[in-house]
């Protein structure tokens, strides 16, 4: 089966610093893939290059067989790749409902019926409908993360990239998020999540890819990757 996302030889240099040194990675349709690695290993750079925030120095990104390398962020979003940021989660000065409305208004025209036909339905899904009338800026942090997820889903993606979706969340909020993300493949949304929270990754992902110094050092079933001595060495300091 053809992968939904095929990254090959992707590299990115910032001045003299190599953030990505030729990464090959495929995301299979319907899976939840985890990308892990220590701080500075190139996880966020990988996302930023795939989503067009940064132009790659080399390599290609194919989404459903189409070359999207180096397209502008808004153009990549319209091909059906949704993504959330670590920090910029929502439009703080605007209402919660208005946030989701905006996110849905520029989505790709094709892509079939959304599982959440209205902004309200999407807020119901992430459990924020009670806060629909509030300004996004007054939401507690956990709710803000969920709103960020709702915004990305409102663009009707077939592939969703999540950048540290659980950062700053408490255990209860994290398990709520895990519950939501696990449902996404059932709605036809493939997920790729980056995080260094191993507990989260074990809950979410059956396959893991590990980055270190901008290169992929392991890729396979979660259990196998976590048992790989190379991974234990560079990432986990020798033990889990």
């Amino acid at each position: 089966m053809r992968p939904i996302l095929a990254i090959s030889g992707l590299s990115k240099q910032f001045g003299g610093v190599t953030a990505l040194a030729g990464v090959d990675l495929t995301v299979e349709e319907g899976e939840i893939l985890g990308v892990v690695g220590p701080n500075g290993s190139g996880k966020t750079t990988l996302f930023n290059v795939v989503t067009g925030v940064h132009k790659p120095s080399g390599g290609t990104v194919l989404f459903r067989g189409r070359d999207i390398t180096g397209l502008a962020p808004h153009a990549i979003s319209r091909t059906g790749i949704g993504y959330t940021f670590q920090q910029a989660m929502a439009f703080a000065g605007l209402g919660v409902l208005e946030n989701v409305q905006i996110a849905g208004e520029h989505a790709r025209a094709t892509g079939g019926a959304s599982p959440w036909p209205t902004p309200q339905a999407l807020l119901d899904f992430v459990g924020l409908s009670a806060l629909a009338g509030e300004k996004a800026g007054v939401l507690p942090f956990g709710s803000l993360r969920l709103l960020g997820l709702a915004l990305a889903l409102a663009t009707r993606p077939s592939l969703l990239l999540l950048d540290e979706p659980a950062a700053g969340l408490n255990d209860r909020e994290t398990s709520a998020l895990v519950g939501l993300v696990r449902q996404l493949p059932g709605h036809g949304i493939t997920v790729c999540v980056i995080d260094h929270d191993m507990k989260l990754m074990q809950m979410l992902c059956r396959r893991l890819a590990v980055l270190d110094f901008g290169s992929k050092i392991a890729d396979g079933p979660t259990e196998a990757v976590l048992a790989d001595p190379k991974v234990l060495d560079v990432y986990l300091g020798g033990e889990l």
Partner: protein
Amino acid sequence: MSIAPKALRSLLPVLVILALIALVPLASPSNRFLSLAISAGINVIALYGLSVLFGQTGILSMGHAALVGVGAYASAILARDFGVGFWLALPVAAIASAVFAMIVGIPSLRVGGHHFVIMTFAFGQLVAIVLTNGGDYTGAATGLDLTDHVTLFDADMTDLTRYYLMVVAFVTAAAVASWAIIHSSYGRTLRAIRENEKLAASLGINVGRHKIGAFVVSGVFAGISGVLLAYFLGHISPSQFSSFPSIYLALMVMIGGARLIEGPLAGGILVAFLPEVLNLDPVQSRIVYGVCLIAVIMLLPDGLIGGIVRALRGLFAGKPKPETERETAPSEARQ
């Protein structure tokens, strides 16, 4: 585009105020008062465009008078060289200003924030310099005369009271247009860009194109304002469209409040009549404006109208509500 009844209600106060303003001639005001009011009204039209740019999109133009100038000169040159009258000059000048906005916007909006402000400031100066050195075509430093009369259904609108009423009608149209933009999905898109460009782009919004679009829209308002100004004054010169008038426009929209529909109206009227009421000479009034601007920026980030609305809400609710703009702070602090 569907507009909720609640949104319609927000238009009502402005329409009531404008209806009252249209009744002013019944009190037989002095010619001086009417002239001042007409000038204020002509500014307010440009301010409604500026409110779309600044209030909704978050982009500040410090060269906006130059776009008004493009409209004014376009109408004067059209009348002189082609015998084109007021009503045809309106759309042509609006398009001319819009095209100018696009020409300035495409390179300028590639740079963000303060750099854009400086670019627009430079553009304003550039237009004044070009007009001053345009020889007979632009009338150089003396400028151009425009002595044609404006007629509407065979009635001569050049009479002060009639011109006043016509300007009020144009202000109303500008307010309604600005209101319609605010409450459309287009307005929502612009606000998204104002709040966070990176997030907006991630949701499929073409940020660059929409920013230029907002500048072009504000150019249309400026062009129309320019035509009304040229026909009102009968004479235009480069200094009217240089940096100081641009700063005044920015000041008016900030003092009034750029995000509320009443803001441009309040800003335009206040800045026009304040020196008159306080009997200030031009130097003194500049000092007062400066102090007002600092006070507004520090105390009333939503402008005067935003401040009044908040104070009233606080009065009715018993205690003051936290101001909307500062509400963004907690989430940012945590990031």
